[in-house]
């Protein structure tokens, strides 16, 4: 039995074609799809945040067990205060909520950066001599030269002389290799998206349409 594509598949397939039509040239169908996508995304985000975050984490606890959750009024109120900026003379009120919000994330991010990035990465950059062998020596040497030369390249506090310019040049080569790797990965990632779309168009839309099993 062949399954004729359902309405959802038709809509998704046509919107995919409209989006890809931009590759030929800009056109009203592409612009319609672009606007529709932006609108649907915003609607989805609002609905999901309301149903999955605001209702279970704020509204239900306050309405069902107020005595145990009255402290949630504070973050709830701060959230409401953020919208005061839309009042003609109430903009200053929103700043208090924003200040608390920013302070919270600075505090969170400070420890995150230190314990999650700076310290572990520094520890990795300092290799114990006791575990040296030919392989780790070579890898560590490349690593150390790369870190040092790239740091010199980005050191702008002093004008570069003949020696530091050469070291910085080595840093540029390391950066180029890094950019090349990133570009290769980016190509792979973008092609994967095209594979996903064409896979959908061919296997879920065209094949059922043609009765191919």
């Amino acid at each position, binding site marked *: 039995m062949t399954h004729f594509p359902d309405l959802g598949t038709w809509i998704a397939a046509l919107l995919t074609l409209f989006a890809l039509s931009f*590759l*030929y040239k800009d056109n009203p169908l592409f612009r319609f799809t672009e606007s529709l996508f932006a609108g649907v*995304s915003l609607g*989805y*985000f609002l609905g*999901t*945040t309301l149903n*999955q*975050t605001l209702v*279970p*984490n704020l509204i*239900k*606890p306050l309405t069902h067990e107020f005595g145990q959750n009255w402290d949630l009024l504070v973050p709830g109120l701060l959230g409401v205060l953020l919208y005061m900026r839309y009042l003609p003379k109430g903009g200053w009120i929103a700043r208090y909520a924003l200040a608390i919000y920013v302070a*919270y*994330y600075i505090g*969170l*991010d400070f*420890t*995150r*950066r230190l*314990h*999650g*990035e700076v310290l*572990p*990465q520094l*520890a*990795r950059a300092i290799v114990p001599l006791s575990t040296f062998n030919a392989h780790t020596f070579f890898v560590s040497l490349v690593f150390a030269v790369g870190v040092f030369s790239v740091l010199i390249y980005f050191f702008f506090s002093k004008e570069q002389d003949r020696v530091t310019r050469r070291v910085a040049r080595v840093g540029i080569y390391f950066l180029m290799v*890094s950019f090349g*790797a*990133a570009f290769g*990965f*980016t*190509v*792979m*990632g*973008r*092609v*994967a*998206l*095209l*594979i*996903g*779309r*064409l*896979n959908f168009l*061919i*296997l879920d839309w065209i094949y059922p349409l043609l009765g191919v099993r």
Partner: protein
Amino acid sequence: MAGFVEKLLNIDRRWLFLLVFAGVAVPIIMPMGLPVTTTGSTRSAFEFIDGLKPGDAVLISFDYGPSSAPENDPMAEGIMRQCFTKRIRVVICALYPLGGLQLANNSLAKVTAEFPHLKYGEDYVNLGFKDGAQAVMKRMGDDIVGAFPVDVRGTPLAQIPMMKEVRSLHQISVVVTIATGIIGEWWITQAHPQSGTPIIVGPTAVGAPKYYAYLNAGQLVGMLSGMKGAAEYEKLLAARYPDLGRFYRTTRAFTATKGMDAQTVIHFVIILFILIGNAAYMSHRAALRKAAAR
């Protein structure tokens, strides 16, 4: 010759789009089954999960949206299949606002249909989506219920049997973040230092290079890089578990292994473009120099 080079340099780029289109479409219509080799980072992720005992809990966080689903879906589904085959309990959550929850629901429904004996609430649970990923991770480190008072169906976590033993990230054996953007990094740099829970990341290929620094520093136990990483994982699963091997060989659904055929062809096409483009450019420049010397 000069005329041909001139034509090459001025070719309408839409012809190149058409070639890329054909390069992707043909392997989808006629799969080639090209071989996939595995890398150390994928093997270590696979072995880590394979080393867990039945009853251990794995948290899979859907931190990506539909825009990267062809890369990320096969990773999430492969890891779920491995966990369910080994009777490892799975906790699902979504921290990516634009579609993470929908993809989590879809993948979970698809994979649990393959394992009908599993029970919701005992073998797996879907916590749903929560906004404010950093704050959510911070709270989960101490108290999962504080961040997710109810699951995706609205059931209080206290009423879900498996969540009585899984109270914080400390009771999670490994967090698997399937990620696009920065949320994967937050699991590594915030949740891991706070709780010590090992992290496996499945980034999109675009995001993969930055994760190598974390991998080298020992902050990750493994990584699946883009569609290639997902295909490697499928290969490891198929080799270790005969039932999954049969599944991946016979399924009509999209898998990363099938996608790698198109990846290989298209990379060949792109490399060819780069070589031809550079050769034409250099030939054109040499002709200009010669003309100037005259």
